[in-house]
């Protein structure tokens, strides 16, 4: 057997490689740099890596090839858009993560111990979150462009492992945070096992582990579809788990609530883009020809997800949990884009993911700012009267909520419109109706929060809004601006997506 020397297209892999390099440098800094300078150098490296990665991506935005990494990476328009979205969201989220108030001083210390107190007094910081975040981002960048199942699996784990860890790093309510990490990890690993089994069956079905190989088998398979469908089902469990679709959603409220808010924002936004990117790629590229078999199930899951997320969110009392359920509902809406299985569905999904991701980071950014003496205030009842105390902040939060609710003149509306029209165009009337109804339900709890902030008198319980750091301010401002601009004049982005978004096989 002749050894084929591997050839990698480094330009196309550069975005990922840069991020990985940044992460490695970060690890080295952890190892060798003096503690005092770690934070600033980490922040710098991280930002630099992300921006450089974005720039590298920009360089190759018009290229597309299946040979970027020996067939393991499909570099195409849609991939570029997913990666760009992830990077933008990541940059915004890094500003939040940089606010170390969110993180425990010393992860190894027992909550409530002297050691922890001392660590806080010594102003210790878990600067490892920066390289961890970069690793996660690298995984996320890889996930939607992976074109064979190994890469897909490795990317999945690569984006998950750092998130499992970081979910447990909250500064306050550490027991909850650690619990979140444990739950996220156990359930994540559980879902990964299904994912892996799915890979096994897809491989068994097609004899190939590349997406295009599977597609060929789907088109021209000689046997029956049992192995294919088992593979689709099991791999879907893993993927739907990541996006939080019912009934694989259960982790998300708990983890969203327990994790440090900055991480919650990051993972809610970026993971969703990455995971949906992968879902879209797999279903569009590999499974498209078997659509009549999986589509009904996907429609049902989408509907249940929308309705469940919206209905349960109504009763939530904690802002992060509410946003978690809201993100479940949004996962349902996004599944409509998968079901659409058309170019317009893909475009709509990308727009929706970007718009939703940016708004989510912004919303969680605001959540980090509402605090009392013991940390963030999640209880919605204590958010009442916020509009009086900090009108600007409350208005911005209201803007994000309106975007989530899909009110016109916000990005959420354009997203919702385009994704539902795509779904309806491909014949899914039920999705359209369910989407509209659950949007109506969802509107209720978004508006309830607005009412709380603006129309209820504040309770004097020490809840206050801290003055945001410059970085947090940037995140929130940019998110709000993007949300608004994409609501008012989305044409440039939509056009760009329309000209760019394609999957190559």
């Amino acid at each position: 057997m002749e050894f084929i020397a591997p050839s990698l297209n480094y330009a196309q892999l550069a975005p990922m490689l840069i991020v990985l390099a940044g992460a490695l440098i970060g690890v080295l800094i952890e190892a060798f740099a003096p503690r005092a300078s770690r934070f600033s150098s980490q922040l710098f490296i991280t930002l630099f890596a992300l921006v450089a990665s974005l720039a590298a991506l920009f360089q190759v935005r018009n290229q597309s090839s299946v040979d970027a990494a020996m067939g393991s990476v499909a570099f195409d328009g849609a991939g570029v858009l997913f990666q760009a979205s992830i990077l933008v969201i990541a940059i915004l989220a890094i500003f939040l993560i940089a606010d170390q108030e969110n993180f425990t001083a010393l992860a190894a210390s027992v909550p409530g111990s002297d050691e922890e107190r001392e660590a806080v007094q010594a102003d210790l910081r878990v600067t490892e979150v920066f390289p961890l975040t970069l690793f996660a981002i690298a995984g996320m960048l890889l996930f939607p462009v992976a074109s064979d199942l190994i890469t897909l699996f490795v990317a999945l784990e690569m984006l998950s492992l750092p998130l499992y860890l970081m979910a447990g790093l909250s500064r306050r309510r550490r027991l909850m945070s650690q619990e979140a990490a444990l739950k996220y990890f156990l359930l994540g690993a559980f879902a990964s096992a299904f994912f892996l089994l799915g890979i096994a069956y897809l491989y068994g079905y097609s004899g190939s582990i590349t997406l295009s190989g599977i597609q060929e088998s789907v088109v021209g398979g000689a046997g029956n579809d049992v192995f294919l469908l088992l593979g689709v089902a099991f791999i879907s469990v893993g993927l739907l788990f990541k996006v939080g679709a019912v009934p694989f959603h259960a982790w998300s409220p708990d983890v969203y609530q327990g994790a440090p808010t900055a991480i919650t924002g990051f993972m809610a936004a970026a993971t969703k883009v990455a995971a949906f990117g992968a879902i879209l790629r797999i279903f569009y590229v590999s499974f498209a020809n078997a659509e009549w078999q999986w589509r009904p199930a996907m429609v049902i899951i989408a509907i249940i997800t929308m309705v469940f997320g919206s209905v349960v969110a109504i009763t939530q009392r904690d802002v992060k949990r509410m946003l978690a359920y809201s993100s479940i509902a949004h996962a349902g809406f996004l599944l409509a884009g998968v079901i659409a299985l058309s170019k317009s569905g893909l475009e709509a999904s990308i727009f929706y993911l970007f718009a939703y991701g940016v708004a989510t980071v912004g919303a969680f950014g605001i959540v980090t700012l509402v605090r009392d003496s013991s940390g963030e205030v999640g209880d919605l009842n204590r958010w009442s009267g916020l509009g009086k105390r900090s009108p600007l902040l409350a208005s911005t939060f209201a803007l994000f909520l309106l975007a989530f609710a899909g009110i016109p003149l916000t990005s959420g509306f354009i997203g919702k419109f385009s994704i539902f029209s795509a779904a309806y165009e491909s014949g899914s009337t039920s999705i359209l109706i369910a989407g509209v109804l659950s949007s109506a339900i969802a509107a209720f709890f978004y508006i309830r929060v607005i009412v709380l902030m603006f129309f209820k008198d504040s309770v004097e319980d020490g809840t206050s809004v801290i003055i945001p750091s410059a970085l947090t301010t940037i995140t929130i401002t940019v998110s709000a601006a993007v949300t608004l601009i994409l609501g008012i004049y989305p044409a440039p982005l939509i056009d760009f997506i329309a000209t760019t978004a394609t999957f190559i096989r």
Partner: protein
Amino acid sequence: MNPYNYLYLAALLFTIGAVGVVVRRNAIVVFMCIELMLNAANLTLVTFSRINGTLDGQVVAFFTMVVAACEVVVGLAIIVTIYRSRRSASVDDASLLKR
């Protein structure tokens, strides 16, 4: 004998592992059950590799082992952390977050 028998075995082991995740309370045992599931998946891969006559399945299985090892490191670290905070490794005790 039919190589499919390995698939049946893997399916059974996978199911047993999945049940273990649901019924066992000790986080470490739960995690071991997940490992069992991964192993079942690996067996499936190896079997399919044999059926298909390609080594890709074995490569996947190999990667799985590596990934699983990483997962074990992270997972056990998390479990140890939570054990130190709570003096308990029961997953049921970690139920502050709910509803």
